[in-house]
C-alpha cells in the first residue's frame, strides 16, 4: 500500500542529541497515533528518520536526501537556528515544507517554513513583565550564550527595558561560550551586581550544556530565588531532569507549555506519550508540544487541501487551528508563526514547574521585532496578494527595507 512519507530531521548524535532525540520520538509517536486513526487521506504515514548528527552542513545534505530521494511530503526538524538556516535554501529550492518547533530569535519568515516555537515576544517580554510586576525587579542581568538567539533576544529586551525606564547601569549583559562549564566568576558577579540594594533578576538565554553547571553553581553559591530569581528561556523539564532542583526552587522559566499544565488534553497526552515511550517517568516539554501542534496542523491542512502537494498545503495551513495542550487553540497565522499563550513557571523540587502566571489570551508572534532598527517596518503575510515574508510597510514593497 502506498504511504505518505514524513521526514524527521533531528540530531540523534553529537551535542544536540541531548535535546533533539526527544523530538524525533515525538514525531514517531504522532505518526503512530495518526496511523491508528487511519492515517491521512486514506494512506498510512511513514516516518523517515535521518541523523544529521549536530553537523550543520549535514543538515542540508540530509534535508536534500529526504526531499529529493525519499520524496517526503513534509519534514519535522531542526533545533538550533543555524541548522534551520542551513536547510532553508534546500526547502526553498525543492519547494517542500519544514516545521520548526523551537523558540528562536525571529527575524525570519519563509514560505516553506512553519514556525511553531515562540518568537521573542511570545516568551521573553511577558517574562520580564511578570518579574517587574510581581517581583518588583529593578535591576537586570541578561546572561546568555554567545550566539545569535541570545544576542537578539537580549537586544530586544534591552530596548524594551529601557523603554520601561530602566537605567543603563541597571542592566548587565554577559555572554559565555557554548558549553561553558566554569560559572564561579560569573555567578559571583551576578551576586555582586544584585547586592546593590535594588531588586535584581537574571534573564537567562544560556543554551544547552552550559545550563547544568550554571544552575549547580547557583545552588552552590546559595543564590536563592527569593533573592535573585533567574528566569530562563531555554530550560525546560528535560534540562531539569539532569539537575537536583532542590536548591533551585522558585527560579523561573517562561514557555508556552509546561508538563504541569492542568488540562485534560495534557493529561491524556502525557499518558499516551509515556505508554508509547514505555517509561512512566518520561517528561514532556515545550518543543514537544510545538512539534505536536505542527504535526496536527499539517494533518489538518493536508486533509483540507486533499493532497500533500506543498503548493496546495502551504496556503491551506494558514488559518488552521488546532487545540494546544494548555487548553486553548493555536492558529497558524499568515506570517507562518502560531498564536501561543505564555506561561511563567517556578521550578519545583521535583523538577517540574509550578505555573505562576499565564497570559489571559494568546499572543501573536512578532516575527520582525518592533524593537530592532532594521526590522521594525517589516511584516510577513503569505496570503495572496501580498505573498511576502518581508514586506516593508513604509515603502510598500516586498523585499525588506532596500530602495
Amino acid at each position, binding site marked *: 500500500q502506498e504511504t505518505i512519507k514524513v521526514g524527521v530531521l533531528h540530531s*540523534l*548524535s553529537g551535542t544536540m542529541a541531548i535535546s533533539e532525540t526527544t523530538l524525533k520520538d515525538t514525531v514517531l509517536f504522532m505518526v503512530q497515533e495518526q496511523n491508528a486513526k487511519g492515517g491521512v487521506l486514506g494512506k498510512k504515514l511513514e516516518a*523517515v*528518520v*535521518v*541523523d*544529521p*548528527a549536530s*553537523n*550543520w*552542513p*549535514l543538515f*542540508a*545534505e*540530509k534535508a*536534500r*536526501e529526504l526531499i*529529493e*530521494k525519499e520524496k517526503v511530503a513534509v519534514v519535522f526538524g531542526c533545533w*538550533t*537556528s*543555524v541548522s534551520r*538556516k*542551513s536547510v*532553508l*535554501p*534546500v526547502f526553498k*529550492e525543492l519547494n517542500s515544507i519544514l516545521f520548526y518547533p523551537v523558540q528562536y530569535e525571529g*527575524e*525570519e519568515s519563509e514560505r516553506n517554513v512553519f514556525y511553531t516555537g515562540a518568537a521573542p515576544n511570545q516568551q521573553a517580554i511577558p517574562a520580564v513583565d511578570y518579574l517587574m510586576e510581581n517581583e518588583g525587579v529593578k535591576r537586570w542581568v541578561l546572561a546568555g550564550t*554567545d*550566539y*545569535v538567539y541570545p*544576542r*537578539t533576544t537580549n*537586544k530586544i529586551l534591552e530596548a524594551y527595558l529601557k523603554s520601561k525606564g530602566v537605567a543603563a547601569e541597571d542592566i548587565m549583559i554577559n*555572554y559565555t*561560550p*557554548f558549553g561553558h562549564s566554569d560559572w564561579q566568576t560569573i555567578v559571583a558577579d551576578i551576586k555582586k551586581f544584585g547586592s546593590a540594594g535594588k531588586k535584581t533578576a537574571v534573564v537567562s538565554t544560556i543554551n544547552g550544556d552550559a545550563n547544568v553547571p550554571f544552575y549547580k553553581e547557583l545552588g552552590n553559591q546559595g543564590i536563592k530565588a527569593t533573592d535573585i530569581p533567574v528566569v530562563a528561556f531555554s530550560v525546560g523539564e528535560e534540562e531539569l531532569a539532569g539537575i537536583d532542583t532542590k536548591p533551585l526552587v522558585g527560579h523561573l522559566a517562561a514557555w508556552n507549555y509546561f508538563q504541569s499544565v492542568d488540562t485534560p488534553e495534557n493529561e491524556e497526552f502525557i499518558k499516551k506519550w509515556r505508554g508509547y515511550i514505555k517509561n512512566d517517568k518520561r517528561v514532556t516539554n515545550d518543543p514537544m508540544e510545538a512539534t505536536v501542534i505542527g504535526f496536527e496542523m499539517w494533518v489538518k491542512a493536508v486533509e483540507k487541501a486533499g493532497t500533500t502537494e506543498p503548493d496546495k498545503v502551504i496556503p491551506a495551513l494558514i488559518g488552521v487551528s488546532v487545540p494546544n495542550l494548555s487548553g486553548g487553540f493555536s492558529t497558524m497565522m499568515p506570517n507562518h508563526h502560531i498564536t501561543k499563550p505564555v506561561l511563567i513557571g517556578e521550578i519545583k523540587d521535583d523538577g517540574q514547574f509550578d505555573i505562576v502566571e499565564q497570559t489571559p489570551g494568546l499572543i501573536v508572534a512578532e516575527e520582525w521585532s518592533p524593537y*530592532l*532598527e*532594521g*526590522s521594525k517596518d*517589516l511584516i510577513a503575510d503569505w496570503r495572496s496578494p501580498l505573498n511576502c*515574508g*518581508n514586506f*516593508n510597510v513604509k515603502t510598500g*514593497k516586498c*523585499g*525588506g*527595507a*532596500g*530602495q
Partner: protein
Amino acid sequence: MSTSETRPPALLTTSGLVFLGVLGAAVVLVPALNLLTAPDSALHVPTYVVSLLGKYLTYALLALSVDLIWGYVGILSLGHGAFFALGGYAMGMYLMRQIGPRGVYGDPVLPDFMVFLNWKELPWFWYGFDLFPFAALMVLLAPGILALVFGWFAFRSRVTGVYLSIITQAMTFALLLAFFRNDMGFGGNNGLTDFKDILGFNIQADGTRVVLFVLSAVALGLGYVLCRFLVRSHFGKVLVAIRDAETRVRFTGYRAENYKLVAFVVSAMLAGIAGALYVPQVGIINPSEFSPANSIEIIVWVAVGGRGTLVGAALGAVLVNYAKTYFTSGLLAPYWLFMLGGLFVAVTLFLPKGIVGTFYDWRARRRASDDIPGAEPAAAPKPAE
C-alpha cells in the same frame, strides 16, 4: 649494477593513474548522467548525488592537503580544519556580497546579519569581497598567511610532535570561539548562508552544481599531481627525511624549518581551495568548521585511507564520508556511531597502514624476492614524535 641511475619514481604511479582515471571518468559521466538523462531513467544521477559527490571531492582535497604534511613531513596538524574554514569563509563572503539587495532586509550592501545587529556600515575586512578575483585571491591568502605566520613561529622555535599538534588544535579552537562571536562580523554561529548566485549563475541550478562538481574534481586532480610532484622531488625527499630524523637533516645542512614552512603553507592553501569549493556546494559556512573534532576527523580519513599515500587520503575521505551519509539514514541511523567507530577500530587493527597503504604492502610483498639484499621495506615509517 655500477651506476646509480635508477629511474626517478614516475610522477604518476599505477595507482595515481587509476585515481586520475576514475576522476576523469566522473568528470565526464556524472554531468552527462545528470543533465542528459531523463529523471526517471535508471541511469539518471540526481542532483543531490552530484552535490554530495562534489562535497566528497572537496573533502578529498582537504585530506590530500593533510596527507602532504602528515604523511610526508610528520606534522600532525589537529587544526587543519581552520584553513579549510578560512577558504570557505573567503568564498562565503563573496557569495554574501553577491546577494545584494535580495536579503530579507533588502539592504544593498550589508548582509542580513549585519542589518539585524544594527551595523551601519560594512566593516573594512569585507571590502573587496564583492569582486570574485579578490575573493579567489583571499581563498589562497587567508589560509596561506595564517599558515605562514603560525608555521614561521612554530617551526623556528622547533615546536614538534604532539606539542605542535596541540597548538594547532588550540589555534583552531581559538578561531572557533572568535568566529562564534557576533561581534567578529562573520555572522556568528549562524555563519554565512542563503547564497543566491556565483559569478552570475544561480547557485541552485543543476548546471551550476555540475560545474562546481567538475571544478572540485579538477581541483582534486591538480592537487594530487601537485602533491606528487612535490613529494617525489628532492624537496619531497628532504620532507620525508625531516619526518624520520629532523635533527639529522639539520646536521646535513638543510634548513628544516623552511622546508616545513613551504609544505605547511602549500597544504593550507590546498585546504583553503577545498573550503572555497565546499561552501557553494553545501550552502553554508559557520564556525563549527573550526571545531577541533572536525580537524581530528580529517586525520581519521587520512589514516583510514593510508597515511603517506596521497591516493589513500583522498580515498579515505570519500569512503568515510560515504559511510557517514549511508549510516546516518534509514534503520541504522540511531546506531551509526557504532558502525563508524567500529570501522575505525577495524581499520587500525586489520589494515594497519590504511586501505591503500596495506594494499601497497601486499603488492610489495608479492613482488619481493626472498633474498636479503634488495628486500622489501620492513621498517615501518617512524611516527612523527
